[in-house]
């Protein structure tokens, strides 16, 4: 059963050095505040899993939190490179980063296999391409009924999944709305799950009878962190800060500039720094 606590406690209790950690959110609802808390608590030797590493993993990688990255698209969407990710891969700075690289289809299937308690995912993919040559975890299986060769990848089973959501009720049931990505699968595939939410409410106000709701007994800890997805966004609360994504290109290109930014905006601040981004715009 989940518990409401501070973000500091939620991360301290659930994320350990050497863990396999998935912070999900497909462009939308990316758990930035929680990622920053992981950096502040100086977790090391993490295996980071995310379909699109985005700025949050650029920051974790640049701060030396990760030994390994499992991913399927590592760019700054619509802007260009993730410079800290590139520096780690191309130059080993601040430390070498091992890559386990997939396609989106493979990772989406692998999360679903994890949630479904299956050992691996099977799908039609990776035909004629070179990724299987550099990733030994991409294999093929034969359909027992037709003999068709199909792609197979191991299920994703994180030690801990971290997500951000719009709201939780007092019992700790969590609602996600909008682009819901792979968060439900990532939570159900994990041993532990930490959730940050925009607000705690009496009534979830689900938009329909089939809303994406994670019952309280599927997560480990919930912290109320308004604005906690900034510069990503929370549909219905605030918009994606596309201007910040563009600005990150310059901030992250230079090692010193990056470190200065992290010192001023992450190491020297807490989750309350995100509050000013929450509820800023009604139309999102």
């Amino acid at each position, binding site marked *: 059963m989940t518990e409401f606590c501070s973000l500091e406690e939620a991360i301290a209790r659930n994320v350990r050095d050497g863990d396999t950690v998935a912070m999900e959110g497909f462009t939308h609802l990316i758990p930035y505040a929680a990622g920053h808390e992981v950096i502040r608590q100086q977790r090391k030797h993490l295996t980071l899993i995310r379909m699109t590493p985005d700025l949050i993993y650029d920051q974790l990688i640049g701060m030396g939190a990760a030994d390994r990255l499992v991913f399927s698209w590592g760019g700054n969407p619509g802007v260009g490179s993730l410079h800290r990710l590139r520096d780690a891969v191309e130059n080993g700075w601040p430390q070498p980063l091992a890559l386990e690289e997939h396609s989106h289809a493979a990772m989406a299937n692998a999360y679903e296999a994890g949630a479904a308690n299956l050992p691996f995912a099977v799908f039609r993919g990776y035909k004629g391409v*070179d990724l299987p040559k550099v990733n030994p975890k991409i294999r093929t299986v034969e359909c027992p009924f037709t003999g068709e060769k199909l792609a197979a990848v191991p299920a994703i089973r994180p030690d801990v999944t971290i997500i951000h959501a719009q709201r939780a009720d007092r019992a700790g049931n969590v609602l996600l709305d909008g682009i*819901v*990505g792979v968060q439900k699968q990532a939570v159900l595939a994990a041993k532990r799950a930490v959730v940050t939410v925009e607000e705690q409410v009496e009534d979830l106000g689900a938009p329909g009878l089939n809303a994406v709701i994670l019952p309280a007994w599927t997560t480990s800890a919930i912290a109320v962190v308004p604005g906690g997805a900034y510069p990503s966004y929370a549909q219905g609360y605030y918009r994606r800060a596309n201007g910040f994504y563009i600005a990150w290109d310059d901030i992250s290109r230079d090692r010193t500039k990056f470190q200065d930014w992290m010192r001023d905006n992450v190491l020297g601040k807490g989750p309350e720094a995100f509050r000013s981004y929450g509820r800023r715009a009604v139309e999102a």
Partner: protein
Amino acid sequence: MTGTFTPNEMMTIVAARALKNSDVCFVGIGAPSAACNLARLTHAPDITLIYESGTIGTRPTVLPLSIGDGELCATALTTVSVPEMFRYWLQGGRITVGFLSGAQIDRYGNLNTTVVGPYEKPKVRLPGGGGAPEIASSCGETFITIAMSPRAFVERLGFITSFGHGRGRGDREALGLKTKGPTRIMTDLCVLEPEPDTKEFVVVSLHPDVTQEAVRAACGWPLRFSPQVKETPPPTPEELRVLRELQARTKKAHSADA
């Protein structure tokens, strides 16, 4: 007369023209997004645009910076989870055309968006495949839009991220693929289509005022031309107006979201 236009505008407009009103189109990140939305705002108002973030039938008023901006979800017919998107809709064979771009392409329409140089010690680490490997294999056909330069149009790819026609005719069938693969490449200088017998891409249409020499100089392999090379019709005033308005709205919106 249409007035002046940039090669980039010509590329987006010729790419938009390739789409039909009845298409169900999986929109790749980058240049394809502008082309697909231009098509929707001009000759193909009923086209179904799908982004890998799960948005189906989206109708954004400004171009998204990412494939998952809130605008895409707010204007979509419905939004599904990412596993559902890749399993039911893409792998399920529901998409008529996938629209891709890339860093490098070869004469058979194979794409590289992964690395330049050795994978383990890359000279340039590119973003990777994302949705593209399975978009390239599962959509009914794929269109590619990419600006021409010798660095982009290469003799041989160091890494195949998305499979086109492999090393030529019959390679897709040999892998068990039943989809057509890349059927058109739209660049800032010309349009290329695969020659039926070889599946090698050849120039079928030159944009206004572009010479064969200029196109050859921008290509890293010995480029061939179709026996009947046409001239691409220049942008219409309406196409240019809609594209420029879309880009102005987009720039304004993105700079406001700081």
